């Protein structure tokens, strides 16, 4: 059984956006803080820190997870993906990101990385969602400036294009 003391920092290793990384965290360090402060990933946005707003959503082993409700040490040995995993290494945006741009699905962009991570996971599970299903998925996020119409359009378009591709 592994046991980590409260006063010391212990090493945490996992696969971050495809690359193995190691950092140090106290048990109480949230994954949001670890990714931002230890790993320098400023795309991890923190809105509420209690699981409600969805801004911090990442993918853990492919599934959406609230980074603010996960301790960094719980990521040990898992695969963690942030929004940086979507675009190609050359910087070419993914179809989902391009559709968000085309449909004006963001303004300030605070909520966007989280919503992209949920949506990318969602579209892998549900290839042909209805508008209602997309809205139901988006209900796990709060966007305070754009509204959801553009996002719904973007996600539905990506689903349609992937089917016909």
């Amino acid at each position, binding site marked *: 059984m592994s046991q980590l003391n*409260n006063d010391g920092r212990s090493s945490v290793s996992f696969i971050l956006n495809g690359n193995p990384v190691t950092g140090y965290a106290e048990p109480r360090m949230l994954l949001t803080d670890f990714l931002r402060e230890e790993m320098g990933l400023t795309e991890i946005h923190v809105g509420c820190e209690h*699981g409600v707003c969805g801004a911090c959503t990442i993918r853990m082993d492919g599934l959406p997870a609230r980074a*603010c409700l996960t*301790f960094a040490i*719980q990521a040990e040995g898992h695969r963690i993906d942030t929004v940086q995993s979507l675009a190609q290494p050359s910087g070419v945006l993914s179809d989902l990101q391009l559709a968000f741009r085309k449909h004006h699905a963001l303004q300030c962009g605070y909520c966007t990385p989280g919503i992209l991570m949920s949506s990318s*996971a969602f579209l892998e599970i549900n290839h042909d969602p209805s508008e209602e299903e997309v809205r*139901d998925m988006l209900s*796990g*996020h709060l966007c305070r400036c754009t509204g959801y119409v553009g996002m719904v359009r973007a996600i539905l378009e990506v689903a349609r294009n992937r089917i016909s591709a």
Partner: protein
Amino acid sequence: MKPHSFEYLRPASIEETVACLARHSEDARIIAGGLSLVAMMNFRLVETKFLVDVANIKALNYIRVDADHIEVGAATTQAQLLAWPELASLSPLLAKGMPFIGHFQTRARGTVGGSIAHSDPSSELPLCLITLGGSVMLRSKAGSREVTAEDFQVGLMQTSRRPDEMVVAVRFPIRKKGAGYSFLEMAMRKGDLAICAVAAEVRDGSIRLGVGGVADKPAVREWKDLGDAALDEALNEFAWDLGGSDDVHATATFRRQLIRRLGRRAILEARECRN
């Protein structure tokens, strides 16, 4: 806000987990998905000396069917159970009620056992479990026991689990022959905590209705099949017995009205779905 500091333990098996609980009892808290627990820790509503992580214990992750129950390992996620192909045919109530649990994102990590152990009075799974007459499997170093849902949850986030015990599985009775089921919920937005949730099981000659979100724990009442007027009467009585209280989301009056209206609609819908 940030949680208090704690020591983190990651036992590799159920045996190691119960040994750890035997040693630390009240000082330890189990974490699986952490969806409710970490939110409370961030608010410092919960402090613990030892956090025992069971999320990766394989023996707690399964869905098994026996003669009349679906047994779900405690660390099985809500999304896994909801995606289980047999769910709609073996438990129509769970299939109807589970989409109301949080959101797509939270169900992916939130566990079945966690929701039962957390025992929020407005949670969907404890409500389904008690309405179906299910039970909770507990394990400690001393042995195992099965506790009915009725006896498990004793109050607001309080259960009869002893500090040295862990929830290892939850047993939901399979749909009964000739029964119809319905689940309805009112919340500020879908996925928010229920202001009132109702679960109905209607069989030949009997009605069972569970209500969550009103009292300090889900409550169930059973009636013989009732005609229209008698049904309204019975629901009204149930609503007054549960009382409810005013809070930021709703008044007690509104909650009682929801029991009458949602309760009636659920019972009629369940009656329709009988087969």
